[in-house]
C-alpha cells in the first residue's frame, strides 16, 4: 500500500473510532473544529520545517506528489488521524483521576488515583 492509501484508510478508521467505537463524536463539536484549526496551523509550520529542511523525505512512488508548505498532502491526513485519535481517547478517559464526594460533586484527586 502507498502512503496515500494508508492515510485515507487511517482517516476512515479514525472517524469510525470517534463516531462509532469510542462514541466521543468530537467531529460533531465546535470545540474540536476550532482546536483542530489551531493545531493544523502549527502542523503546517512545524511539518514545513521538517520537510522543507529535509529532516524527513518521501519516496515519490508512495505519494501522489501534491505538497502544501513543503509537506506531502498525505501528511494532512496523517495529522488528522493522529490528532483526532488523541483527542478522542482523551475525551473517552474523562473523569480518570477524579473522585466523587458523597454530596455528588467531583474533584481532582491530586496524587491519588
Amino acid at each position, binding site marked *: 500500500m*502507498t*502512503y496515500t492509501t*494508508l492515510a485515507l484508510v*487511517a482517516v476512515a478508521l479514525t472517524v469510525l473510532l470517534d463516531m462509532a467505537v469510542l462514541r*466521543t463524536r*468530537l467531529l460533531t*463539536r*465546535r*470545540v*474540536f473544529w*476550532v*482546536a*483542530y484549526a*489551531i*493545531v493544523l496551523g*502549527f502542523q503546517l509550520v*512545524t511539518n514545513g*520545517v*521538517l520537510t522543507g*529542511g*529535509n*529532516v*524527513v*523525505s*518521501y*519516496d515519490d512512488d*508512495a*505519494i501522489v506528489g501534491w505538497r502544501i508548505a513543503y509537506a506531502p498532502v498525505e501528511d494532512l491526513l496523517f495529522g488528522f488521524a*493522529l*490528532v483526532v*485519535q*488523541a*483527542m478522542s*481517547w*482523551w*475525551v473517552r*478517559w*474523562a473523569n*480518570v*483521576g477524579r473522585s466523587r464526594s458523597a454530596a455528588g460533586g467531583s474533584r*481532582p484527586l491530586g496524587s491519588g*488515583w
Partner: protein
Amino acid sequence: MTYLLVLAGIVLVTLPLGVWTGVYGQWRRLLLTVIPVLAVFVAWDVYAIGRGHWRFDPDQTTGVGVGSVPVEELLFFVVVPVAAVIALEAVRKARGWDYR
C-alpha cells in the same frame, strides 16, 4: 538535532497552556491517551519505514532508535497528542464550549 529542536519548540509553546488548562495535572488520563496512539502510529511508522515511504536525514537526527523507528518519532507521537489535547482543553476553557 533539528528534529529534537522542533519537538522542544512544540513543548515550549504549549507549556503555559498545559499548565493553565490543568492537562499536565491529569497525567494518568494523558497516559491512557498516549498509549493507544503510540501503538497505532509506531506500527504505521515501522511499516512505512520498512517500505521506504519516508526516511530521515542522518545529519539532522540522533541516529538513536528503537528498531527502525528513530527516537524522535517516538517522542513526536507523545508530544503531538499532548499538544492536541492541550489545544482542545484551551479552546474549551477559553470559550466555554464543552465536548460532552
